[in-house]
C-alpha cells in the first residue's frame, strides 16, 4: 500500500468500538489458484454511525468487489470485517443470510430492475423485509408509507410493479426498500449512474437527508462529482488499493496521490477549462512511470 500518500493510514485509524463498519487489511482474490487475480489489497476503512463515506474508483479498481465483500457475497482471502460490532469475517452463507435478514446492512445497486423483484408490487417489495423480521402487518404497512414519503414517492404507486415505474422512481423504491428495516449501514453501488439529471439530484438529496437522519452510508461510484456533494469523507480506490482517504473537501481541493490528482483534474466541472491539459499530461506520465 502506498501509505505515504494516504492521509489516514490504516494503523492510525483507532479501532473504534462504535464504528458501524470496520474493515481492516482486506484482501480479495478471484480465479483459480494458478491464475489468481488480486482484486483488493490491504484495504482498511472505518465508517462511523451516521457518516457518509464515498468510495471512488474507476473500472477495475475493485470498488464493486469491496461492496460485494462487505455484503458477504464475496469471500475475502485475508482481513477483518466488523459490521455493527459483529466480526463477520468467518461467517458462512447461512450466517450472512441471517445477518442480512436482520436488516443491519442493506444495499442499493445501480440497476433497480435487477435488485427489485419484478413480480412484487412496490408495497410487497417494501414490506417483505419487515414481515420476514416478524413486524406485524399493520405496523409494516405504516412503516412502508413513512419510508415511501421519505423518498418522495406518492402512495398511489404502492400497487405498481417495478416495470410500471420510471427509472428514477424505481431507484427511489430500492432506496426505500433498503431503509425500511432501519439499517445501521447502507451500501450503495453506483446508485445514480443510470439516472438522468433531475432524478440524480433527487436521489442525492435523499441521501443527504438520510445522513441527517443518522444512517451510515457507503456510497460507491466512479463519478467523483456525484459523491462529492454527499460524502463526509472520500476514499480513493486505485488498482485494488486505497490510495487516499480524507475529508471530501480536502481530497477534492488538495489531492495528494498522483492518481487522485489526475482524477480530480479529469472530472469535468463547469469551471475548469482545457487549460489543465498540460497538468493532466504531466500526471498521466507520472502515474504510468
Amino acid at each position, binding site marked *: 500500500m502506498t501509505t505515504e500518500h494516504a492521509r489516514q493510514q490504516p494503523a492510525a485509524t483507532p479501532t473504534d468500538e462504535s464504528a458501524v463498519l470496520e474493515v481492516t487489511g482486506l484482501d480479495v482474490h478471484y480465479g483459480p489458484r494458478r491464475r489468481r487475480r488480486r482484486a483488493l489489497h490491504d484495504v482498511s476503512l472505518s465508517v462511523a454511525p451516521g457518516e457518509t463515506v464515498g468510495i471512488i474508483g474507476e473500472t477495475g479498481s475493485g470498488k464493486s468487489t469491496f461492496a460485494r465483500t462487505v455484503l458477504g457475497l464475496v469471500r475475502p482471502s485475508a482481513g477483518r470485517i466488523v459490521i455493527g460490532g459483529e466480526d463477520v469475517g468467518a461467517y458462512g452463507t447461512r450466517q450472512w443470510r441471517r445477518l442480512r435478514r436482520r436488516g443491519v446492512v442493506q444495499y442499493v445497486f445501480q440497476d433497480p430492475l435487477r435488485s427489485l423483484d419484478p413480480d412484487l408490487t412496490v408495497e410487497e417489495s417494501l414490506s417483505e423485509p419487515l414481515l420476514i423480521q416478524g413486524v406485524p402487518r399493520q405496523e409494516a404497512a405504516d412503516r412502508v408509507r413513512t419510508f415511501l414519503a421519505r423518498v418522495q414517492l406518492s402512495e398511489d404507486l404502492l400497487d405498481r410493479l417495478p416495470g410500471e415505474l420510471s427509472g428514477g422512481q424505481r431507484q427511489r423504491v430500492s432506496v426505500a426498500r433498503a431503509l425500511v428495516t432501519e439499517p445501521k449501514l447502507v451500501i450503495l453501488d453506483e446508485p445514480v449512474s443510470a439516472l438522468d439529471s433531475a432524478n440524480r439530484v433527487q436521489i442525492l438529496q435523499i441521501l443527504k437527508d438520510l445522513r441527517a437522519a443518522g444512517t451510515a452510508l457507503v456510497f460507491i461510484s466512479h463519478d467523483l*462529482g456525484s459523491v462529492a*456533494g454527499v460524502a463526509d469523507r472520500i476514499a480513493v480506490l486505485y488498482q485494488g488499493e486505497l490510495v487516499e482517504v480524507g475529508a471530501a473537501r480536502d481530497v477534492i481541493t488538495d489531492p495528494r496521490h498522483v492518481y487522485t490528482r489526475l482524477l480530480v483534474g*479529469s472530472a469535468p466541472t*463547469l469551471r475548469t477549462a482545457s487549460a489543465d491539459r498540460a497538468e493532466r499530461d504531466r500526471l498521466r506520465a507520472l502515474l504510468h512511470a
Partner: protein
Amino acid sequence: MTTLSEKAAPGTALKPALKTATPREPVAPAAPVLTVRDVRISDRVTDREIVHGVSFELTPGKTVGIVGESGSGKTLTCRATLGILPPHFEVSAGSIEIAGTDIADLTPQQWTALRGATISAVFQDPASYLNPSIRVGAQIAEVIRVKKGVKRREARHRAVELLQAVQLRDPELVYGQYTHELSGGMLQRVLIAAAIAADPRILIADEATTALDVTVQAEILDLLAELREHAGLALVIVSHDLAVVAQLCDEVLVMRDGEVVEQGTTREVLHHPRHEYTRLLIAEHESYGLDRFLTPQETS
C-alpha cells in the same frame, strides 16, 4: 418544406453554397463548414415533429456543444447532419449545409464522398462500429485505401501514423490487435483514428466519452481539443453532461424534448442561464458536484 427526398439530386459534382444567409445569423469571421438552419425533424409514420428547429453555425477550429437528456433530439440532429436519419425520419423543414453544400440535394454517391472526407463522427459504443474478427489497424487502413485511393502498403503506414496521432502508446502493436484486446478508451481512440483518416473538416462526437472512466474521458476530450488546434477540425460535441461540453465548446445548445431551450456562448450559458432546465443542469454541479468545492475565483 425541404425534404431529403423531395429535392431531386442533380449531377455528381458537389454544388456550391447557396447564398441564402438568414438575417438573424451574425457574420462569421471564417466561412462556416457546417450551417444548420432551423432544422426540424419529423417522424413520417406518425407525422409528428420530433425536433422543433435547431440552428447553429460551425467554423474551422470551433466547437459547438449540444446538451440534453436521451430523447431530447440531440442525436437525431447529429444524424440529420450526417445524412443517416433512422428509417421514416426526415428533415421536414430547414436546411443543412456542409462546406457550402446543401445536403438536401445529395445523392447517395455524393453522401459517400462527403462522409469521412468532409464530415465524420464517433459514437458512444466504439466496439459496435468495429468488426471483431478483423484487426483494428486493417479497418483503419481500409478507410484510407478507399477514401484516399492509396496502395495497401501506404495505407498501412498511414494507419499506424494515425494510431500514433490519437496517442496510442504502441501503435504498431495496436494495429495488429482485435477489438476484444483493447479497452473502451483505446477503442474510442481507434474509432477517432478511423474517423479522421480521410482528413474531415467536421467531427461529430455523440456521447463519445459517456461510457468511459473520467480519467479516460479527459484523455479523449484532450485529444479532441488537440485535433481541433492542430488539424483545424470543427467539432460538434454532444453530451448529456453540461460540464463535458463546457470543457471544449465555444457555443452551447441546450435541448429538451426536441426544443432548443437555451443557446449562446458557453460563458453566457454557464453564467447567465435563462431557462430553468439549464439552471437545473448547473445546480446539479454546483450543489452536488465538484463545483461545490471550487471557489468563484477559479472561474475561467
